[in-house]
């Protein structure tokens, strides 16, 4: 099945969830409504499309310019050897998304990392805690609002002159 027909079939089958289709540098990108994210992912993972691997989940902070956080999912279909990128925009003030831990097991750590770095809360996540930073760390480092060199040491430091 060629790439275009694949995208068209996705649109026909799951039209309502998909807001738009675009191509960036040769990869096909679907922009998705965050509300229907989980149902779309379940459909994409199962039979006709079988995107078996959740390659990657990350987040991009457009809070300053457009006041939104953009979740970026990369899926890979093993049998069809094709990649797909899905984008879902969340409001920067209160970023909440549905968890995908039921569908893929690596979503657990990926979502914990996005929560740690961007503050996106995933409803239904079994154990949403910080992954890369430590307990007493305030703020979310990868947000553009977080200063680049603001360290929060855990033990007192002798500051060299």
């Amino acid at each position, binding site marked *: 099945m060629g790439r275009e027909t694949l995208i068209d079939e996705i649109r026909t089958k799951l039209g309502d969830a998909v807001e738009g289709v675009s191509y960036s540098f040769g990869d096909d990108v679907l922009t998705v409504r965050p509300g229907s994210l989980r149902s779309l992912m379940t459909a994409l993972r199962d039979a006709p499309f079988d995107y078996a691997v959740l390659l990657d989940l990350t987040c991009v902070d457009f809070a300053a310019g457009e006041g939104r956080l953009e979740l970026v999912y990369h899926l890979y279909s093993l049998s069809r050897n094709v990649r797909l990128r899905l984008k879902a925009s969340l409001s920067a003030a209160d970023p909440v998304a549905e968890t995908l831990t039921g569908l893929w097991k690596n979503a657990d750590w990926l979502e914990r990392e996005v929560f740690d770095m961007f503050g996106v809360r995933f409803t239904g996540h079994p154990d949403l805690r910080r992954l890369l930073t430590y307990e007493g760390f305030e703020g979310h*480092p990868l947000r553009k609002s977080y*200063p*680049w060199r603001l*360290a929060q040491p*855990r033990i007192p430091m002798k500051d060299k002159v």
Partner: protein
Amino acid sequence: MSGLDFLTTRLETALGWGRKYSLFHYPFITACCGMEYMSAACAHFDIDRFGAGLTRFSPRQADLLLVVGTVTHKLAPVLKTVYDQMLEPKWVIAFGACAVSGGIYQNYAVVQGIDRIIPVDIYIPGCPPRPETVLDGLMKLQDKIQHQKQDWRWAGKP
């Protein structure tokens, strides 16, 4: 030099000689410098020729703390605990630019040099330092140990 001093200087040189050739090091390895530590410790650039080859993975039995690689703020308490649990006399080598001064990472996550947490004896620059530089740093530490004054308890010295 009073008679007592003559006696102690001979003993101090003997002590220094004994300590510098039997360094048990605790490799506190975290990042990329660990690969160069492996090369320095293995057959090609053998660190064992200087008597420092035996790695002890417990601070109780080690007298040289080899901090190899980046120390992040999350790891800082671990480094402090391991250093405190080492017995005297102990020495610390900062191995690699990240341990010396935070290296190329100057941001919210990395401690800008481990001498903000623990006293350091020898700084080995390089990102990562070549094994020859590591051996040179080790030899400099051995000189330092050789000429280190011993704090004599019964002689009343501070």
